């Protein structure tokens, strides 16, 4: 649960009830992610996500490198992205 996966913000929710959320694309898998801790991240920006929460913003090259490492760890993407994540490699 502790690895942190980089993904690209593809949508930011307009819903004002509850914490700020958005949709983040991880290598083809899309997830609703809480953006409350990275309020400056907009569409197209890359964020590192832990258990459904963006905790820091990074650039695209960094995101690509980290994803390559995660793909090498058995089940890492599936474990980090939850039960129904399908991992494309």
């Amino acid at each position, binding site marked *: *649960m*502790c*690895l*942190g996966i980089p993904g690209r913000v593809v949508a930011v929710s307009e819903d004002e009830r*509850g*914490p700020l959320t958005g949709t983040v694309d991880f290598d083809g898998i899309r*997830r609703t*992610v*809480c953006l*409350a*801790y*990275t*309020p400056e991240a907009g569409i197209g920006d890359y964020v*590192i996500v*832990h*258990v*459904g*929460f963006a*905790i*820091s913003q*990074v*650039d695209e090259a*960094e995101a690509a*490198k*980290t994803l*390559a*490492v995660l793909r*090498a*760890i*058995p*089940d*890492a993407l599936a*474990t980090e*992205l*939850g*039960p129904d*994540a399908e991992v494309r490699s």
Partner: protein
Amino acid sequence: MKYLDEYRDPVLARRLLAELNGTATRPWAIMEVCGGQTHTLVRQGIDELLPAGVRMIHGPGCPVCVTPLEIIDKAVAIASRPGVIFTSYGDMLRVPGTHGDLLGVKARGGDVRVVYSPLDAVRVAADNPGREVVFFAVGFETTAPANAMAVLHAADTGVANFSVLVSHVLVPPAITAILDAPDNQVQAFLAAGHVCAVMGWTEYEPIAARYRVPIVVTGFEPLDLLEGIVMAVRQLEEGRAEVENQYARAVKRTGNAPARDAVRRVFQVTGRTWRGIGPIPASGLALAPEFAGHDAERRFAVEDVRATEHPDCIAGAILRGTALPTDCAAYGTRCTPRRPLGAPMVSTEGTCAAFHHAGRRRSAPTPSTVEVPR
């Protein structure tokens, strides 16, 4: 050299190794405190490529592995109650408690659900007002902001049937405990990049100064680790003991302010027992009194269970860095990722699982004795 050509940038990896060979004049022991880093080091064979004498000690960097047996037993007890929906990160389900794991509860008909985010658990609670929904809030500083937000959100929206079983642990007190141990061998630390992305590294500055130990905030890409090791060895050779940041592209000195603030609001620092290591003062987080209504331990009044580890498991020595998985008699035979005896074999972030996935054998020489062809 063994695995170097598998690197995305073998030229840079070779340059960093050459730099390391030129810098290290004495044996040094460096500990990484992140399960992701352990996995990269072992999988890429980085620990076996280091100059003779420079040794990596794999620290207690796996949140699944250090969650105490007593808490696993409490989780199993709560999840077994009728009417409870027990929600958890997937990697906690197979961690062995004294009498079985959460997966066993599910197999016996318990309602145990894997969620991706703690906010999903709050949603389950809102959708099932007649049921008690408990979330297993474990992990290091990386998951604490998420769990804090879940509690805040449940409190704000009046989801009263949502509670958390909290067993959060903090990295800096564990580093201090390792340095205070009489048999400590660690001379420098690689701090976990993503823990610092949340918390920053100001907490590490007094540790570096007081214990005269270099601490390098490091990412978990192979080249990050090589660079972090080079920076640590350079400090050791020059007699410096500072906090340096290798992972500047994701980490700032003060970390993530809104995340840190949420953690401070919802949790308070408390003593925690680390599985395999024992009690460490002020090394964890518990719910602040204001949020006691969402505390599963109060709500379910589970008795303190006297927990016992499997007698063959030497996880404690492995988590303290005084033994390797390959020193364990059960490694790879009675203990495998499919049938783990101890926590470090369960999670992909655990040292035993990292060794097993990389195919390390029991008879293999320890990394510190491997000669590197130059």
